[in-house]
């Protein structure tokens, strides 16, 4: 038997934008065991949310994650609204849907770029990020900021999309779709890409459920499960069908995300077409009552889970946030043993890890 060595992977590693350490136990080049070590980015946001007044928490929750910032803010508002419960106006739910899908578009473009980068396919990485910049620009035009959009408030949204902006957004989105098609064509047909992803990090249907995965990672193993099927906000009105792949490997995960990228653009175009007129926000009455609520929303990386407990004061008694990566990290314990050291970066990346958001 070859001698075993322990190799640390991270916390600073070129493929990881964020700090996570994997202690890999290696036998020659083969991984035989792995222990993830997280905790480099723990900020105590859940505790801070208990001490802050509830309207101020929106801005804190938006800073849990930089990429799904808008959706974190919206989900927080959603869970607090459920404490009353408070109905939000239809225009607000459409606008939330549009911004959530814009966030998904740019997040998937970011991930596809990072995937290309992990192969060493630098020019493709830059192409993806060039397209992504257009999406960020329309986000900035409509919300006021490219990263922390801060558009949601308890009861609705703060900003409106007027007709000029709407026209501009539709144009840009069509353009983005055309350019992304050209690049995705390369990604799904290229020989090297396939050699590095097909059959790597395979999880079967049963394993995926037993590990409690979520999001594209779960759907790539053939489980047709997506929070958007609950029909929150405007999703109930839009023609929406989860995208599923059956391979369960890194390639299927890429394929699901490519599919969702197009779907997100289509959903935005459809929502723009159906955008109803009306109020932007309903006014909450008094403080959140003593009640409990759960809100599950689909983020680009999977299901985000918010649990809130009010106690009739301006502060929440408890707020629990479970981000998608929190559920997806344990899958590394199963996927990595048995693979080559060189495949580790791509398998880790295939769950689209977002570590700081995991630790909150």
């Amino acid at each position, binding site marked *: 038997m070859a001698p075993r060595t322990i190799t640390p992977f991270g916390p600073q590693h070129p493929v990881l934008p964020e700090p996570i350490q994997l202690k890999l136990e290696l036998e020659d080049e083969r991984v035989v065991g792995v222990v993830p070590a997280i905790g480099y980015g723990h900020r105590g946001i859940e505790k801070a949310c208990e001490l*802050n007044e509830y*309207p*101020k928490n*929106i*801005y*804190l929750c938006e800073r849990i994650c930089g990429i799904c910032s808008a959706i974190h803010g919206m989900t927080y508002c959603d869970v607090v609204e459920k404490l009353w419960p408070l109905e939000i106006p239809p225009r607000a739910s459409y606008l939330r849907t549009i911004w959530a899908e814009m966030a998904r578009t740019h997040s998937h473009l970011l991930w596809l770029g990072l995937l290309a980068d992990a192969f060493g396919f630098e*020019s*493709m990485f830059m*192409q993806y990020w*060039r397209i992504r*910049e257009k999406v960020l*620009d329309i986000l*900035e*035009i409509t919300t*006021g*900021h490219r990263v*922390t959009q*801060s558009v949601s408030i308890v009861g609705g949204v*703060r*900003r409106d999309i007027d007709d000029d902006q709407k026209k501009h957004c539709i144009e840009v989105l069509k353009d983005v779709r055309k350019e992304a098609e*050209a*690049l995705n*064509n*390369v990604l799904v*047909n*290229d020989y090297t890409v396939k050699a590095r992803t097909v059959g790597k990090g395979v999880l079967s249907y049963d394993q995926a459920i037993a590990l409690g995965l979520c999001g594209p990672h779960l759907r790539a193993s053939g489980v047709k499960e997506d929070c958007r099927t609950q029909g929150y906000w405007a999703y109930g009105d839009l023609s929406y069908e989860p995208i599923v792949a059956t391979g369960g490997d890194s390639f299927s995960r890429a394929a699901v995300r490519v599919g969702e990228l197009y779907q997100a653009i289509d959903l935005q175009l459809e929502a723009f077409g159906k955008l109803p007129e009306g109020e932007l926000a309903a006014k909450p009455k008094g403080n959140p009552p003593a009640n409990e609520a759960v809100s599950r929303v689909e983020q680009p990386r999977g299901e985000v889970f918010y649990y809130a407990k009010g106690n009739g004061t301006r502060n929440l008694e408890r707020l629990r946030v479970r981000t998608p990566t929190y559920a997806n990290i344990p899958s590394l314990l199963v996927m990595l043993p048995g693979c080559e050291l060189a495949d580790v970066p791509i398998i880790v990346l295939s769950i689209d890890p977002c570590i700081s958001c995991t630790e909150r």
Partner: protein
Amino acid sequence: MIMLPTVVRNLFGGPATRMYPVTTREPFARARGHVEFNEDLCNQCGTCARRCPAIAIDLDKDKKEWILHPDRCIICEVCAEVCPKDAITIAPQWRAPFYKREAIIYHSKAVKEKGEKTGE
């Protein structure tokens, strides 16, 4: 080879990036850039300081000072929305980076009228 059309287009197209900070893009009209304060309108009611999520606004009621800590401000636009006198606006230009944590002190000039509600 499937990448070829993209490669060719790039060869003849201009760069997609800008030479920041030599050339900057015009800020979008409704972007949130920085906080601007109008001394003539503020009457020291204190709503903005209470509602600011980042505790970036301080008031000194005796000296009638309105103090902004730009290093804490997250440019969320809450203060501008809640100010009953519209003394705060959000301008689209980004702030330049700074090296020191310095508060900006303004002097509020408007006076509270009798019986006027003070915020919430």
